[in-house]
Every structure is written in structure tokens, then in C-alpha cells.
């Protein structure tokens, strides 16, 4: 009985110690601050989307999908984003065909084959810097190299201002992103997997092909998605390498090479030129084009994410 009596006050003390202390105040403040920043950035985004949608809404209400399927025109009541949308899709496909294989191959070389020499480290550092170079600089590069110097190849009849010039410029622009993210995913492959594969007598190629690349693939896909979304939205370099911002003939009855070497436009440049037009009607048109651009980028990303998930599920 004396024991039970002794337990009483002791239990009270423990209770005080365990429950009486003030909570982790700084931790909670930090968590709250983090949540606030998230809400602020989300809020800005929502306001932006909402105002854009509001401005664009009359255009969609009046013309529906006709806005998407009409060609450019100097009349706001007849103009549409058809050529811009098709142009952007062709551009992005071109960028994907050029930048993804080259970028991934470069990443595999740098991460898996290149020795860790001073020259190679310098190379990687430079690629990292290239990823941060303003896009207008790539535009100047494209203007000098693809539009002027290589005019004979990129577009003899369009003064070099062609899909090829624009696509190559964007490809050069996004390649550092592809390389860096791919290298990052390759580096993240656990050493244990490589060792295990070498340990059963795999050659370097077999290790990379059968284990490293499948493991790194989802991360590399993410890099590709980011790069292509960037290419989709770029405007400044395309203005320099001569995307048409005004009237453009509808491409039709031409072979793919002629199309690629011909004049082009893209959604962002179209938005840019409409935004400079005076009048409320063009304001609404601009907002509507922005909505189409956002939807197109989301669609491209969604497709890429579905592809990535399908690949992930395989193992």
C-alpha cells in the first residue's frame, strides 16, 4: 500500500514532464511560414489564370473552337491561332528530335564514360552555365548561325527564317537542361546496382543498357518534359530568328522539307504580336491565345507523364 501511495506524486511529475512542456514553437512557426509561401505562389498563379480566363472567355463564348481552327488574319473577328498552334507543335517535335537524342547521349558520355579530368569538369561547369544563359542570347546565336550563315540549308527561299532555324535555336537552348537533368538521374543510380551487374560479369555497355538506363529513365523523362515545355513557351529567340508575327500563308500541298524550310510562326510569337495590337478586341484575343498555349503545354506534359509512368510500372 505504501508503494501505491509513493506512485501518486511520481506519476504526477511524469505527467507534468510529458504533457506540460510547451510545444515545438519554432518548428510550428517554420511549418506555417512554408505553408504561407506555398499559398502565396499558388494564389498568384490562380489570380493570373482567373484574369486570363475572364479576358478570354468572350472569345470562346462567341467563336468556340473556331478560334483554334482559324488562320491568322488582320481582322480580330476572323483571326485564329491555328497556324501558331500547328507551328508550335512542329517546332517542339523538331526540338525533341534534335535535342533529346543528342542531350541524352552527351549525358551518358559525360556521366558514364568520360574520365574525371580537369577538362571534363570544365566542360560540365560550362554546360551548367549555358543552362542559365538568357534565351535572347540563343536567339542572337540562331540569327547569326542558322539564319544567316547556314541559310542555304535552313531555308533558301525564306531567307533562313524557317522552322529549321527556329527549331535548331530552341534545341540548342534546351540541350543543357536535358544534359544536366539526365546526368543527375544517371548519377542517382545506386552504386550497388552497378557493382552487382559488374560483379556477375557484365561489360560496361551491358551495365548501362540493362541496369543504369532503366533505373535512370523516369528521371530522364522528367528532364525531357521540362525541356520541351520550355521550348513550347519560348518567345524571345524566335522573334530574333524570324518567326512571322503577322500574316502567314497556310502551308498546304508541300512536302515536309519544304514546310520545314518555309516561313513559320508559333503560339508565343502570335501572342506577342497580338498583345501589341491596340483595341479591346485584340486584348481578348491575346488572352484566348494564352489559354490555348497553356492547354497545349499541359497536354504535352500530360502525355509525357503518362509515358513516364507506364515505363516506371514495367518494373
Amino acid at each position: 500500500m505504501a508503494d501505491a501511495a509513493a506512485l501518486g506524486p511520481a506519476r504526477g511529475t511524469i505527467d507534468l514532464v510529458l504533457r506540460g512542456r510547451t510545444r515545438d514553437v519554432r518548428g510550428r512557426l517554420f511549418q506555417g511560414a512554408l505553408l504561407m509561401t506555398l499559398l502565396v505562389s499558388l494564389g498568384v498563379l490562380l489570380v493570373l489564370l482567373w484574369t486570363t480566363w475572364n479576358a478570354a472567355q468572350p472569345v470562346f463564348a462567341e467563336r468556340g473552337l473556331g478560334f483554334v481552327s482559324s488562320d491568322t488574319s488582320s481582322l480580330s473577328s476572323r483571326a485564329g491561332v491555328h497556324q501558331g498552334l500547328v507551328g508550335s507543335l512542329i517546332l517542339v517535335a523538331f526540338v525533341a528530335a534534335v535535342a533529346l537524342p543528342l542531350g541524352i547521349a552527351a549525358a551518358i558520355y559525360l556521366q558514364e564514360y568520360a574520365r574525371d579530368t580537369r577538362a571534363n569538369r570544365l566542360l560540365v561547369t560550362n554546360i551548367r552555365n549555358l543552362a542559365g544563359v538568357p534565351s535572347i542570347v540563343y536567339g542572337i546565336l540562331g540569327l547569326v548561325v542558322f539564319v544567316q550563315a547556314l541559310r542555304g540549308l535552313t531555308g533558301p527561299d525564306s531567307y533562313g527564317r524557317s522552322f529549321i532555324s527556329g527549331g535548331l535555336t530552341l534545341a540548342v537552348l534546351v540541350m543543357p537542361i536535358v544534359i544536366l537533368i539526365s546526368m543527375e538521374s544517371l548519377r542517382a543510380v545506386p552504386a550497388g546496382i552497378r557493382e552487382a551487374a559488374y560483379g556477375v560479369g557484365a561489360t560496361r555497355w551491358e551495365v548501362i543498357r540493362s541496369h543504369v538506363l532503366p533505373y535512370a529513365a523516369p528521371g530522364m523523362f522528367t528532364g525531357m518534359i521540362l525541356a520541351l515545355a520550355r521550348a513550347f513557351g519560348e518567345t524571345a529567340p524566335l522573334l530574333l530568328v524570324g518567326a512571322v508575327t503577322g500574316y502567314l500563308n497556310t502551308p498546304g500541298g508541300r512536302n515536309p522539307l519544304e514546310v520545314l524550310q518555309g516561313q513559320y510562326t508559333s503560339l508565343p510569337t502570335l501572342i506577342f504580336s497580338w498583345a501589341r495590337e491596340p483595341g479591346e478586341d485584340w486584348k481578348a484575343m491575346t488572352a484566348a491565345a494564352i489559354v490555348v498555349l497553356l492547354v497545349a503545354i499541359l497536354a504535352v506534359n500530360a502525355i509525357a507523364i503518362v509515358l513516364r509512368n507506364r515505363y516506371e510500372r514495367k518494373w
Partner: protein
Amino acid sequence: MSGSGEGMELTQERVDGLVVGDDHHASRPVVGHRERVERAEPAAVFDIADLSVSYGDFRALRDVSLSIREHEITALIGPSGCGKTTFLRCLNRMNDLIEDARIEGQVRYHGVDLYDPRVDPVEVRRRIGMVFQKPNPFPKSIYDNVAFGPRIAGFDGDLEELVERSLRRAALWDEVKDKLKESGLALSGGQQQRLCIARAIATRPDVILMDEPCSALDPIATQRIEDLMQELIEDYTIIIVTHNMQQAARVSDRTAFFTVEVDEANGQRTGVVVEVAQTHAIFTNPSDERTEAYVTGRFG
């Protein structure tokens, strides 16, 4: 090419050894003849002479000379940083994967210098399998984990049968036979390590290197791996790095004790071999006082 058949009776008779052909360049040991061996010492699989390993300016291991005998379990013990793992990785040229590793001295495997420029490290790793400290199954199915090695080696026999045989040999078959298509990562730690052993066996090596294979496992899983080693030793030669002296005493025939020597001048720590002997001699009657200090727990 394995010199030892499945289910071989453990008799006085032993495979004399994989004799290397005259053609040095072939470097692929061929199956030797069996002969009745009455001699006390089994043949050597590895003869290592004056082996030193450096990583850049750092010398990890100095002047190691020892022999590894066939169908014996050799334990490598010693304090952390004494170069046991470095030494083990020299035996199947895994150190080649480390860019600035430099190896001096000789590692003779059945008489062939493994660091001869004409030796193909890929072929070396097929014959000298490895099990790592942390179980590292491929993130693929159990079946593919075991089948990968034989596949890339161009195995053209019955792959399913080989996978089953390897899994049986690793004492894992009964636990996984109904889920061969499931991921190897879904297994428990102990099962994963046995899967790694099955994977190592599947390329039909004659030596298995084990780098602290039980350090991430619980006592029961450890027991299973140790039992398995006793079974495997009929067909293979095993070299095991262990931090656990009881484990070395329980499983091994011979033990090599490594230690660290600190250079007074520049503070560099270099691994050296102190003593190699029968395991019971190392633990009961070591000839070097450093060994005695270590095995009795006074140091390390």
C-alpha cells in the same frame, strides 16, 4: 565449365584444381583431372605476392602476400580501414571500377596473373563471383536477377533449370518458387542476400567473394547464410570479409588478420596483413601479439 558437379559426394576425393592451359592468352582455366589427394594442403586458388593498392596518393594496402586454398573458407578480419575490402576487390578486379586505384604486385589465380594486360576483367568477374555488404538485388524480378548473369554470358542451355538450380543451391527456392516474377526487392533482407548468392552462383564461378555479407542481417538470417556457406564450400572456394570475429571463428578454415599501420611521419594509415593461419590457431594461439590483442578484444 564448372569443375565440380552438383551433388558431388564429399569424400576423400577432391577436385585437384582447375588447371590453366598452356596458352596463357586464353586465361580461361580448363577443367583438370580428378585425382585422389592424400596430401594435407589443398591446392591454391589464389597466390598473392607483394600486393599494394593506392587510391591516388593514399596507399590503402601494402605488401600483402598470401595464398587462398581451394574448397576452404578464408576469413579476412581486422579493424575498420585495414584494407580487407580493398584486398577482396582486387581478387575479381572490382577495383578497376575506381578511377584512381593503382594496383602493384601480383594476384595469381590458378597461376594466371589477373592483372596481365591480356586478361579480360569481365571474364574474371564471371569466374570469381561476389556478394556485397548490403543486399543489392537488381530492381527486377527474382527470375531475372538470377538469369541476368548467364544471359549476358551467352548461356544457351536450359535457363529455367539453371535459375532453379541456383536458387536451390542458395536455399531460397522453396520460399520463392511461386513468385519468381515478383520483384527481388520485395523479399526480406536475408532472402535478398540469398538471392544475391544465387545470382553469384548462376554464372558458375569457382570462387565466391563475400564482403561482410551478414552485416545488414539479423541473427537468424545470418545463421542461414553461414549454414549455406558450409554447403557451398563443397563446390566453391569462399573468401569472406567479416567484422564479426565469432563469425570468422564459426565458419572459416583459415583466417587472415589485417591491421592498420600508421606512418608516424605523415599520419597515413595503411593496411597490412599481420598473420595468416588456420582459424583455430589464430583464435587460440596467435603468433603475433597484435593478432592476440585483436582477437581477445583488447584492441579494435
